[in-house]
Protein backbone atom coordinates (compact mmCIF):
# COMPACT_ATOMS: atom_id res chain seq x y z
CA UNK A 1 0.00 0.00 0.00
CA UNK A 2 2.80 2.41 0.95
CA UNK A 3 4.39 1.58 -2.35
CA UNK A 4 1.21 2.33 -4.30
CA UNK A 5 0.88 5.71 -2.58
CA UNK A 6 4.42 6.59 -3.61
CA UNK A 7 3.63 5.64 -7.20
CA UNK A 8 0.43 7.71 -7.12
CA UNK A 9 2.32 10.71 -5.79
CA UNK A 10 4.99 10.37 -8.47
CA UNK A 11 2.48 9.99 -11.31
CA UNK A 12 0.36 12.98 -10.30
CA UNK A 13 3.34 15.21 -9.47
CA UNK A 14 4.47 14.51 -13.03
CA UNK A 15 1.01 15.13 -14.50
CA UNK A 16 0.75 18.48 -12.74
CA UNK A 17 3.67 19.73 -14.83
CA UNK A 18 1.73 19.06 -18.04
CA UNK A 19 -1.19 21.29 -17.14
CA UNK A 20 0.12 24.58 -18.57
CA UNK A 21 -2.66 24.41 -21.16
CA UNK A 22 -5.35 23.66 -18.58
CA UNK A 23 -6.31 20.39 -16.92
CA UNK A 24 -7.35 18.66 -20.15
CA UNK A 25 -3.81 18.95 -21.46
CA UNK A 26 -2.76 16.21 -19.05
CA UNK A 27 -5.57 13.84 -20.05
CA UNK A 28 -3.77 11.80 -22.77
CA UNK A 29 -0.80 11.19 -20.50
CA UNK A 30 -3.11 10.50 -17.58
CA UNK A 31 -4.87 7.81 -19.62
CA UNK A 32 -1.57 6.13 -20.48
CA UNK A 33 -0.28 6.19 -16.89
CA UNK A 34 -3.43 5.40 -14.90
CA UNK A 35 -5.13 3.00 -17.32
CA UNK A 36 -2.39 1.28 -19.31
CA UNK A 37 0.71 1.40 -17.13
CA UNK A 38 -0.69 1.08 -13.60
CA UNK A 39 -4.17 -0.31 -14.36
CA UNK A 40 -5.77 1.63 -11.52
CA UNK A 41 -9.01 1.95 -13.50
CA UNK A 42 -10.45 1.24 -16.93
CA UNK A 43 -10.60 3.77 -19.76
CA UNK A 44 -14.42 4.11 -19.59
CA UNK A 45 -14.14 4.74 -15.83
CA UNK A 46 -11.56 7.46 -16.46
CA UNK A 47 -13.80 9.08 -19.06
CA UNK A 48 -16.78 8.91 -16.69
CA UNK A 49 -14.91 10.44 -13.77
CA UNK A 50 -13.35 13.15 -15.93
CA UNK A 51 -16.66 14.12 -17.46
CA UNK A 52 -18.34 14.23 -14.05
CA UNK A 53 -15.55 16.61 -13.01
CA UNK A 54 -16.33 18.83 -16.00
CA UNK A 55 -19.65 20.25 -14.74
CA UNK A 56 -18.76 19.71 -11.07
CA UNK A 57 -17.45 22.84 -9.33
CA UNK A 58 -13.77 23.63 -9.28
CA UNK A 59 -10.83 22.29 -11.26
CA UNK A 60 -11.68 19.19 -13.37
CA UNK A 61 -8.48 17.53 -12.33
CA UNK A 62 -10.05 16.97 -8.91
CA UNK A 63 -11.11 13.58 -10.22
CA UNK A 64 -7.64 12.45 -9.15
CA UNK A 65 -9.15 12.26 -5.66
CA UNK A 66 -11.41 9.48 -6.91
CA UNK A 67 -8.57 7.53 -8.53
CA UNK A 68 -6.28 7.89 -5.52
CA UNK A 69 -9.10 7.07 -3.13
CA UNK A 70 -9.85 3.83 -4.94
CA UNK A 71 -6.22 2.79 -4.99
CA UNK A 72 -5.19 3.70 -1.47
CA UNK A 73 -8.02 5.30 0.50
CA UNK A 74 -8.06 8.59 2.35
CA UNK A 75 -4.30 8.90 2.95
CA UNK A 76 -3.56 8.25 -0.73
CA UNK A 77 -6.05 10.92 -1.77
CA UNK A 78 -4.46 13.53 0.51
CA UNK A 79 -0.91 12.61 -0.52
CA UNK A 80 -1.88 12.74 -4.21
CA UNK A 81 -3.48 16.16 -3.83
CA UNK A 82 -0.34 17.50 -2.17
CA UNK A 83 1.87 15.88 -4.82
CA UNK A 84 -0.24 17.40 -7.60
CA UNK A 85 -0.75 20.90 -6.24
CA UNK A 86 2.35 21.28 -4.06
CA UNK A 87 5.15 21.74 -6.63
CA UNK A 88 3.23 24.02 -9.02
CA UNK A 89 1.85 26.02 -6.09
CA UNK A 90 5.34 26.62 -4.75
CA UNK A 91 6.65 27.44 -8.22
CA UNK A 92 3.86 29.91 -8.97
CA UNK A 93 4.30 31.50 -5.56
CA UNK A 94 8.06 31.91 -5.97
CA UNK A 95 7.77 33.26 -9.51
CA UNK A 96 5.14 35.74 -8.34
CA UNK A 97 7.39 36.79 -5.47
CA UNK A 98 10.59 37.02 -7.50
CA UNK A 99 8.97 39.01 -10.25
CA UNK A 100 6.91 41.66 -8.51
CA UNK A 101 7.10 43.55 -11.80
CA UNK A 102 6.26 40.44 -13.75
CA UNK A 103 3.60 42.19 -15.77
CA UNK A 104 6.22 44.38 -17.43
CA UNK A 105 8.71 41.58 -17.89
CA UNK A 106 9.22 41.37 -21.70
CA UNK A 107 9.72 37.59 -21.59
CA UNK A 108 6.32 37.04 -20.07
CA UNK A 109 4.50 38.18 -23.21
CA UNK A 110 6.80 36.05 -25.35
CA UNK A 111 6.27 32.97 -23.20
CA UNK A 112 2.56 33.54 -23.25
CA UNK A 113 2.37 34.02 -27.00
CA UNK A 114 4.51 30.95 -27.53
CA UNK A 115 2.45 28.85 -25.15
CA UNK A 116 -0.93 29.86 -26.56
CA UNK A 117 -0.76 27.77 -29.76
CA UNK A 118 0.84 24.91 -27.79
CA UNK A 119 -2.04 24.98 -25.34
CA UNK A 120 -4.50 24.68 -28.23
CA UNK A 121 -2.68 21.59 -29.44
CA UNK A 122 -2.71 20.12 -25.92
CA UNK A 123 -6.39 20.94 -25.57
CA UNK A 124 -7.19 19.23 -28.87
CA UNK A 125 -5.15 16.19 -27.84
CA UNK A 126 -7.14 15.98 -24.61
CA UNK A 127 -10.31 16.45 -26.60
CA UNK A 128 -9.30 13.60 -28.93
CA UNK A 129 -8.64 11.27 -26.00
CA UNK A 130 -12.02 12.17 -24.51
CA UNK A 131 -13.69 11.63 -27.87
CA UNK A 132 -12.17 8.18 -28.32
CA UNK A 133 -13.70 7.10 -25.05
CA UNK A 134 -16.99 8.98 -25.17
CA UNK A 135 -18.12 9.02 -28.82
CA UNK A 136 -19.44 5.65 -29.85
CA UNK A 137 -22.17 6.25 -32.41
CA UNK A 138 -24.67 8.64 -33.87
CA UNK A 139 -26.34 9.66 -30.60
CA UNK A 140 -23.13 10.55 -28.76
CA UNK A 141 -21.71 12.38 -31.81
CA UNK A 142 -24.93 14.36 -32.05
CA UNK A 143 -24.70 15.33 -28.36
CA UNK A 144 -21.08 16.49 -28.71
CA UNK A 145 -21.73 18.53 -31.86
CA UNK A 146 -24.99 19.85 -30.42
CA UNK A 147 -23.28 21.06 -27.25
CA UNK A 148 -20.54 22.69 -29.35
CA UNK A 149 -23.06 24.51 -31.58
CA UNK A 150 -25.21 25.68 -28.67
CA UNK A 151 -22.16 27.02 -26.83
CA UNK A 152 -20.92 28.82 -29.94
CA UNK A 153 -24.31 30.42 -30.45
CA UNK A 154 -25.53 31.21 -26.93
CA UNK A 155 -23.95 32.37 -23.69
CA UNK A 156 -25.14 29.60 -21.42
CA UNK A 157 -23.51 28.00 -18.40
CA UNK A 158 -21.97 24.78 -19.79
CA UNK A 159 -22.72 22.96 -16.54
CA UNK A 160 -26.45 23.45 -17.13
CA UNK A 161 -26.11 21.90 -20.58
CA UNK A 162 -24.33 18.87 -19.21
CA UNK A 163 -26.91 18.41 -16.46
CA UNK A 164 -29.65 18.79 -19.10
CA UNK A 165 -28.07 16.11 -21.30
CA UNK A 166 -27.83 13.77 -18.31
CA UNK A 167 -31.50 14.38 -17.49
CA UNK A 168 -32.63 13.65 -21.07
CA UNK A 169 -30.44 10.53 -21.03
CA UNK A 170 -31.99 9.23 -17.84
CA UNK A 171 -35.50 10.01 -19.09
CA UNK A 172 -34.98 8.18 -22.35
CA UNK A 173 -33.51 5.26 -20.43
CA UNK A 174 -36.43 5.17 -18.02
CA UNK A 175 -39.03 5.24 -20.79
CA UNK A 176 -37.30 2.60 -22.87
Amino acid at each position, binding site marked *: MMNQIQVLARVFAYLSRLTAGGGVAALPEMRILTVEVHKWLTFPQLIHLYSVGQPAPGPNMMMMVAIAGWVGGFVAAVVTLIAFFGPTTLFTFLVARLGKKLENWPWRTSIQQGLAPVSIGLLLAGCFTMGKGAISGLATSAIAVGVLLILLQYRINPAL*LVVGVAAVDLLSFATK
Partner: protein
Amino acid sequence: MSDPDTKTATRVLPCAGAKASVGQMFLEFPVVGISSFGGVVPYLRASLVTKQHWIDDKELVGMLSISQSLPGLNATNMAILEGDKLCGALGSLTAIVGVCLPDALIMAAVAVFYRHHGDRALVSAGLKGVAAAAVGLLLHQSVFRTLIVLGILAILFQHPRRRENVNL
Protein backbone atom coordinates in the same frame (compact mmCIF):
# COMPACT_ATOMS: atom_id res chain seq x y z
CA MET B 1 -2.37 51.40 7.70
CA SER B 2 -5.68 50.50 9.22
CA ASP B 3 -8.62 49.69 7.01
CA PRO B 4 -11.74 51.71 7.78
CA ASP B 5 -13.96 49.20 6.02
CA THR B 6 -14.68 46.85 8.91
CA LYS B 7 -18.32 46.03 8.40
CA THR B 8 -17.64 42.30 8.21
CA ALA B 9 -17.51 40.65 11.59
CA THR B 10 -14.77 38.19 10.69
CA ARG B 11 -11.51 40.03 11.28
CA VAL B 12 -9.50 37.00 12.21
CA LEU B 13 -5.79 37.51 11.47
CA PRO B 14 -6.04 40.82 9.64
CA CYS B 15 -3.34 41.37 7.05
CA ALA B 16 -1.13 44.42 7.18
CA GLY B 17 -2.30 47.06 4.75
CA ALA B 18 -4.68 44.68 2.99
CA LYS B 19 -8.41 44.76 2.54
CA ALA B 20 -8.99 41.20 3.67
CA SER B 21 -8.21 38.99 6.64
CA VAL B 22 -7.27 35.32 6.55
CA GLY B 23 -10.59 34.57 8.23
CA GLN B 24 -12.54 36.35 5.50
CA MET B 25 -10.51 34.61 2.81
CA PHE B 26 -11.12 31.24 4.42
CA LEU B 27 -14.83 31.97 4.14
CA GLU B 28 -14.76 33.44 0.64
CA PHE B 29 -12.55 31.06 -1.37
CA PRO B 30 -14.50 27.87 -0.54
CA VAL B 31 -17.64 29.67 -1.73
CA VAL B 32 -15.90 30.24 -5.05
CA GLY B 33 -14.74 26.63 -5.10
CA ILE B 34 -18.19 25.25 -4.50
CA SER B 35 -20.16 27.58 -6.76
CA SER B 36 -17.82 27.48 -9.72
CA PHE B 37 -19.65 25.14 -12.04
CA GLY B 38 -17.90 24.86 -15.40
CA GLY B 39 -14.71 26.79 -14.60
CA VAL B 40 -13.42 28.70 -11.60
CA VAL B 41 -12.05 31.88 -13.19
CA PRO B 42 -15.35 33.76 -13.87
CA TYR B 43 -16.46 33.01 -10.31
CA LEU B 44 -13.20 34.27 -8.85
CA ARG B 45 -13.86 37.53 -10.67
CA ALA B 46 -17.46 37.75 -9.48
CA SER B 47 -16.36 37.15 -5.91
CA LEU B 48 -13.06 39.02 -5.56
CA VAL B 49 -13.61 41.93 -7.94
CA THR B 50 -17.34 42.55 -8.02
CA LYS B 51 -18.42 41.47 -4.55
CA GLN B 52 -15.46 42.00 -2.23
CA HIS B 53 -13.47 44.65 -4.15
CA TRP B 54 -10.27 42.98 -2.97
CA ILE B 55 -8.65 43.42 -6.37
CA ASP B 56 -9.65 45.31 -9.52
CA ASP B 57 -10.20 44.06 -13.06
CA LYS B 58 -6.81 45.21 -14.29
CA GLU B 59 -5.04 43.23 -11.56
CA LEU B 60 -7.23 40.23 -12.33
CA VAL B 61 -6.30 40.29 -16.03
CA GLY B 62 -2.62 40.58 -15.08
CA MET B 63 -2.91 37.62 -12.71
CA LEU B 64 -4.76 35.56 -15.32
CA SER B 65 -2.07 36.07 -17.92
CA ILE B 66 0.67 35.19 -15.43
CA SER B 67 -1.32 32.09 -14.40
CA GLN B 68 -1.59 31.00 -17.99
CA SER B 69 2.14 31.19 -18.61
CA LEU B 70 2.99 29.03 -15.58
CA PRO B 71 2.48 25.30 -15.11
CA GLY B 72 -0.44 24.33 -12.91
CA LEU B 73 -4.16 24.92 -13.29
CA ASN B 74 -5.19 28.49 -14.12
CA ALA B 75 -7.74 28.60 -11.34
CA THR B 76 -5.39 27.48 -8.60
CA ASN B 77 -2.54 29.64 -9.93
CA MET B 78 -4.86 32.62 -9.76
CA ALA B 79 -5.93 31.75 -6.25
CA ILE B 80 -2.25 31.63 -5.24
CA LEU B 81 -1.50 35.02 -6.79
CA GLU B 82 -4.60 36.62 -5.29
CA GLY B 83 -3.91 35.08 -1.89
CA ASP B 84 -0.34 36.34 -1.95
CA LYS B 85 -1.46 39.83 -2.90
CA LEU B 86 -4.06 39.89 -0.13
CA CYS B 87 -2.14 38.25 2.67
CA GLY B 88 1.28 36.90 1.68
CA ALA B 89 2.26 33.25 1.96
CA LEU B 90 -0.46 32.48 4.48
CA GLY B 91 -2.96 34.09 2.11
CA SER B 92 -1.81 31.90 -0.77
CA LEU B 93 -2.13 28.78 1.33
CA THR B 94 -5.59 29.81 2.52
CA ALA B 95 -6.74 30.58 -1.01
CA ILE B 96 -5.58 27.34 -2.60
CA VAL B 97 -6.88 25.14 0.20
CA GLY B 98 -10.13 27.10 0.16
CA VAL B 99 -10.67 26.71 -3.59
CA CYS B 100 -9.77 23.01 -3.64
CA LEU B 101 -11.23 21.62 -0.43
CA PRO B 102 -14.99 21.64 -1.19
CA ASP B 103 -14.32 20.19 -4.60
CA ALA B 104 -12.07 17.44 -3.28
CA LEU B 105 -14.81 16.46 -0.82
CA ILE B 106 -17.43 16.38 -3.59
CA MET B 107 -15.22 14.24 -5.83
CA ALA B 108 -14.55 11.90 -2.89
CA ALA B 109 -18.31 11.45 -2.50
CA VAL B 110 -18.68 10.89 -6.27
CA ALA B 111 -15.91 8.29 -6.11
CA VAL B 112 -17.65 6.34 -3.36
CA PHE B 113 -20.99 6.49 -5.18
CA TYR B 114 -19.49 5.56 -8.55
CA ARG B 115 -17.56 2.66 -7.05
CA HIS B 116 -20.74 1.12 -5.67
CA HIS B 117 -23.21 2.02 -8.42
CA GLY B 118 -21.04 2.80 -11.46
CA ASP B 119 -21.87 -0.41 -13.32
CA ARG B 120 -25.64 -0.02 -13.00
CA ALA B 121 -27.36 0.46 -16.35
CA LEU B 122 -29.07 3.65 -15.20
CA VAL B 123 -25.80 5.31 -14.11
CA SER B 124 -23.90 4.36 -17.26
CA ALA B 125 -26.81 5.59 -19.38
CA GLY B 126 -26.62 9.00 -17.72
CA LEU B 127 -22.83 9.16 -17.86
CA LYS B 128 -22.70 8.23 -21.54
CA GLY B 129 -24.42 11.50 -22.44
CA VAL B 130 -22.42 13.49 -19.88
CA ALA B 131 -19.15 12.23 -21.40
CA ALA B 132 -20.33 13.12 -24.92
CA ALA B 133 -21.37 16.57 -23.71
CA ALA B 134 -17.94 17.00 -22.12
CA VAL B 135 -16.39 16.41 -25.55
CA GLY B 136 -18.61 19.20 -26.87
CA LEU B 137 -17.41 21.51 -24.09
CA LEU B 138 -13.78 20.77 -24.89
CA LEU B 139 -14.34 21.36 -28.61
CA HIS B 140 -15.90 24.70 -27.76
CA GLN B 141 -12.92 25.64 -25.59
CA SER B 142 -10.57 24.70 -28.45
CA VAL B 143 -12.49 26.78 -31.00
CA PHE B 144 -12.66 29.68 -28.59
CA ARG B 145 -8.98 29.59 -27.78
CA THR B 146 -8.00 29.26 -31.45
CA LEU B 147 -9.99 32.39 -32.26
CA ILE B 148 -8.36 34.32 -29.40
CA VAL B 149 -4.85 33.33 -30.52
CA LEU B 150 -5.60 34.17 -34.16
CA GLY B 151 -6.98 37.53 -33.02
CA ILE B 152 -3.87 38.34 -30.97
CA LEU B 153 -1.59 37.31 -33.83
CA ALA B 154 -3.58 39.41 -36.29
CA ILE B 155 -3.31 42.47 -34.05
CA LEU B 156 0.43 41.99 -33.57
CA PHE B 157 0.92 41.45 -37.27
CA GLN B 158 -1.01 44.59 -38.17
CA HIS B 159 0.46 46.92 -35.54
CA PRO B 160 3.85 45.60 -34.48
CA ARG B 161 5.16 49.03 -33.42
CA ARG B 162 2.10 50.44 -31.71
CA ARG B 163 1.83 47.97 -28.89
CA GLU B 164 3.03 50.37 -26.22
CA ASN B 165 0.30 52.85 -27.07
CA VAL B 166 -2.53 50.43 -26.61
CA ASN B 167 -4.25 50.90 -23.27
CA LEU B 168 -6.29 48.00 -21.95
